[in-house]
């Protein structure tokens, strides 16, 4: 069953720039999809349409068959988005306040908010930091906090926009492990990235974007040899003709 269906989606910005051009894409429930492309190819613009942060100029985005525009609150609960800049996503004064922000916006009762906060923080392994100021966390921890903030809203789809930007090696491993865990727990994962090295071993579908359109869509193993024509670096192991291994091994 397709959890996301995008039909003929186009987006034009206020200054006339074309952000997306006639995108058609279906994503099945439980998939782990990587959307790759060079800067400005339209990856983030596409992701922002999935929870109605941007609305289509033309076309439609459906979540479980329901257009996103029909109920924006429901769409945003259904599709959780982890932004590229984790700092800008932090709104709470303590770690637990920040995680509680989403459930509070859903007008859940206080006991339910508390239950969700505890569960989300335990899932990402930040429960021991619950009273800490979010700005004092490390890069990887901030990214995990952003994930916890999303998890507390109990979404079905989790969207990551450049999840490894400005992270060190331990930070990358922490976030990647979290993504793999969430995928195994049944979430549909969508990742926008131009760096496939860290992700490719875990993804089961690769979508390549260029100039606001989808130019390739298929199994990673089929597309690895053609990446550099679209401004995406081919993973090192693949260049050397070797099998690509997970960064978690």
């Amino acid at each position, binding site marked *: 069953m397709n959890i996301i269906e995008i039909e003929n989606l186009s987006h034009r910005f206020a200054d006339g720039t074309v952000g997306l051009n006639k995108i058609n894409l279906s994503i099945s429930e439980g998939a782990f999809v990587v959307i790759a492309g060079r800067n400005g190819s339209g990856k983030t613009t596409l992701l922002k349409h999935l929870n109605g942060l941007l609305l289509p100029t033309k076309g439609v985005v459906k979540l479980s068959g329901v257009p996103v525009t029909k109920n924006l609150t429901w769409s*945003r609960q259904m599709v959780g988005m982890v932004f590229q800049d984790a700092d800008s996503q932090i709104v709470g004064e303590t770690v637990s306040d920040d995680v509680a922000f989403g459930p509070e916006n859903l007008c859940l009762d*206080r006991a339910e908010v508390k239950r969700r906060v505890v569960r989300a923080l335990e899932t990402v392994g930040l429960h021991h930091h619950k009273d800490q100021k979010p700005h004092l966390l490390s890069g990887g921890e901030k990214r995990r906090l952003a994930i916890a903030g999303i998890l507390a809203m109990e979404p079905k789809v989790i969207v990551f926009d450049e999840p490894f930007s400005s992270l060190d090696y331990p930070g990358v491993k922490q976030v990647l492990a979290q993504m793999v865990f969430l995928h195994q727990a049944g979430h549909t994962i969508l990742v926008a990235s131009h760096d496939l090295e860290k992700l490719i071993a875990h993804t089961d579908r690769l979508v390549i974007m260029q100039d606001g359109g989808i130019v390739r869509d298929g199994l990673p193993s089929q597309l690895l040899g053609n990446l550099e024509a679209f401004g995406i670096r081919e993973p090192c192991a693949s260049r050397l003709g070797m099998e690509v291994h997970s960064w978690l091994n």
Partner: protein
Amino acid sequence: MAELNVLGFHAGNSVPHQLDVRFKLMFLVIISLSSLKAFAPSLSLLTLVLIVALNHAGLPFKMALKDLRYGFLLLVFVFMARSLSVPGSPVVEFKAVSVTREGLYEGSMVCWRLLIVIMTGLLFVLTTRSSEIKAAVEWMLKPFPWIPAKRIGIMMSLIVRFIPIIFEQAKKTKEAQKARGVENRKNPVYRLKMFGIPLMRRIFERADKLVLAMEARCYSENRTDSLLSSSVKDWIVLAGVMCLCLIIIT
């Protein structure tokens, strides 16, 4: 790792942390007003009480002094203005300008009172979540149905939330400019322009990102509010604050 900014909530279990935010707002008003009527002995008592309370609430004093240095600069200006403008017996004279004994006394009293207000505000901000401030403002505006209480509450909590971000952005802008030798330019207008414009742009960009992140997490005016509940502790502290203020003004 980001540097800690004192102008924001610090989690803790101190008595001020446990108090109802409505009572804390009341204390803020009562203590600030009482300090206007206070003189050296009672101001000393009040300062001592506030230092103990701030220490108990876990304020990192060294960092607080660093973060509030521009506020102290303002106090210096106030002191100088008072010293020069109040008539009385001159201590120092230079042409038509004279610093008077009465001016020095008045200036130090005004600065001391302002310092009390700053310390009380710091204690409030240090021990109160912005969501609690929002809930308290909404509660206080409830009797006035024509005032958009929820919107005002949100605005106030966002202002409190944004103060540390503005400081952080100012620090980053300053560092970036220092790295490019801005200190070699002596013209203060040029430096202010080169500092102010990028700072404002960064703040607005950050605000835009924050809005987007809040929208992505279903932000609206109607949300689960913080629970406001007073306890015996609040009333005991209120009695204590009232007694202190009575001692101060009598």
